[in-house]
């Protein structure tokens, strides 16, 4: 009995130790990024962990610096890039919600010809490498006047965000018995009322998880805004390239920009954490 207990404790300690080890391993790039963002130029290429931290990099990317003013380097436009990222990513998720929730509901509830083909087509957006479609898309975009517009970027992000939302929510809607909707009809409620009062609370975990993931995918996207956007819509991912030129590499500023660019995702993930785990494991358990 005693030894069993001791063994159990040992196993718990070992598994904790392993998890901590893995945690350090997984987070190391992030830690390194934060460290680099706090270093000044000369320290940049050392592996010192003890140094005098500086917030100059953050100040420089947020407010520009003297050299930028003097025209030595291009004026940093991090705040604008950040806003562009925010507008395009949240806009894309918003459009995906408006289109994807009804689409997922329809795919879950109604029988119609070509239903599975249609669902698979949505999913197949995720298979195609972006590079395959980007050249024809850019030609189309230039002709339609969507090139270098926020709407254009939101639109092309649908390739990334929409399939995710549709497929996660579809399985949620399929799990809800149609009887519930019919019971509510007999009870005398309109479909809209039932949808918002009964169905939406049931799919909320899936909705939150899928929307967050969609937001992260959109935020992290590099290829689409690089090719389909110009200076008007330059996002943080594309702009981070600008910190490195042939003459000089501001890796510390790049790191500072990356740290700031990661913040919204981390904050969002933390705020809906309780939905996140439930939302993504729910569908999986059910198979």
């Amino acid at each position, binding site marked *: 009995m005693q030894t069993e207990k001791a063994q159990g404790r040992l196993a718990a300690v070992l598994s904790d130790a392993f998890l901590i080890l893995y945690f350090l391993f997984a987070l190391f790039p992030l830690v390194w990024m934060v460290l680099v963002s706090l270093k000044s130029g000369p320290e940049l290429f050392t592996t010192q962990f003890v140094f005098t931290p500086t917030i100059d990099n953050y100040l420089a990317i947020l407010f520009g610096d003297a050299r930028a003013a003097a025209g030595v380097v291009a004026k940093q436009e991090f705040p604008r890039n950040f806003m562009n990222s925010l507008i395009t990513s949240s806009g894309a998720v918003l459009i995906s919600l408006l289109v994807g929730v009804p689409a997922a509901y329809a795919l879950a509830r109604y029988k119609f010809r070509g239903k599975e083909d249609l669902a698979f087509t949505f999913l197949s957006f995720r298979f195609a490498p972006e590079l395959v479609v980007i050249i024809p898309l850019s030609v189309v975009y230039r002709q339609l006047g969507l090139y270098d517009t926020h709407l254009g970027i939101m639109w092309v992000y649908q390739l990334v965000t929409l399939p995710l939302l549709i497929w996660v929510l579809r399985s949620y809607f399929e799990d809800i018995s149609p009887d519930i909707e019919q019971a509510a*009809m007999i009870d005398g409620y309109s479909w809209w009322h039932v949808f918002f009062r*009964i169905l939406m*609370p049931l799919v909320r975990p899936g909705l939150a998880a899928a929307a967050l993931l969609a937001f992260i995918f959109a935020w992290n996207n590099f290829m689409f805004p690089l090719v389909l956007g110009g200076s008007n819509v330059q996002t943080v991912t594309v702009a981070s390239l600008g910190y490195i030129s042939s003459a000089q590499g501001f890796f510390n500023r790049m790191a500072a920009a990356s740290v700031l660019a990661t913040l919204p995702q981390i904050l969002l993930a933390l705020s809906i954490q309780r939905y996140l785990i439930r939302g993504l494991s729910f569908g999986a358990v059910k198979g």
Partner: protein
Amino acid sequence: MAELRLVHIYKTYKGGVEAVKDLNLTVADGEFLALLGPSGCGKTSTLRMIVGLEEITGGEMYIGSRLVNKLAPNHRNVALAFETYALYPPLTVYENIAFNLRAKKVAPAEIDRRVRAVAAMLEITDILNRTPAELGGGHKQRISLARALVRNPDVFLMDEPLSHLDAAQRSHMRVELKRLHAETKSTTILVTHDQLEAVAMAERIAVMNFGVLQQVGTFEDVYNHPVNEFVAGFIGEPPMNFLPCRPQSEGGQLFLISADNSFRLLLPDLLRSRLERAGIQQVDLGIRPVHLDLLDQPGNGPGELQGVVSTYESLGEEGQLAVSIGAAALLVVTPPELSLRRGDTVHLRLRASQIHLFDAKTQAAL
């Protein structure tokens, strides 16, 4: 409370599937009727048409004096207890029950009074503040019934209400549902494929098959006087035996002879005139397993048969004996603990008053 009247009701689905054909049925005010039939017999389509979830293809449906064909479900004043309960998961038990009253804009005090009254009747007062997800099947069943009853429906429908309960809960709920009906006196329709449920609860049973109403009546009616082979075989457990045979007159007596000549059955006088009047050449003889008696001695009286034991099972309170007579097979309910072996010869007597005869072609009772 109201009478429900279905007049020449048809339901044809897209693609031409005829789910319900020419259904005429009247359920009296305050009556408890069971709609009984195998899967796909049209009973669920009928129920959904009554509730208004399915459009009526043809015919007229009246609740009381109102023609309800075109009325939306919420204007028919019907209630349905779903097979899957269909409770609203985000709402508490209380709100689930009150949901309909809130839609009707009933005053809050009145809602509270009615919810508590119906909760007391179904003994769920102590769980009013829980949510359905925390509760088991028996409780969910009660909530779904409460939700249906709270609105005082003109017609109360139940779709396979006991199919998701375990055996103990099921027999308990059967009694409860009967009590509820006695208390509320609402016009009630129970849809089920389980004849035991129908027999236990309903005053009348309507048997359906292939979209056609076969027979309506009390259990005694459908059990003792089935109108055709389907009803005869569907009602009663174990099911009725059928023996195909042809009538033959010999020396002033009427015999039934099987197709392969493996038996000759001297027909009791009772049935003789009926068969002669019908004047048909092929009949199916129907006899329930409980209406066959094992004989110690072979006699030569009317209604006697000789066969060979193929299996015998002693099931505790009774025994089930399978006898083969040529190509035909008969199931007999016997006392338990008989010493019968495969291959033994047995003598059976068919109780004359319990023999049913059917036209082999139309399957209708003679």
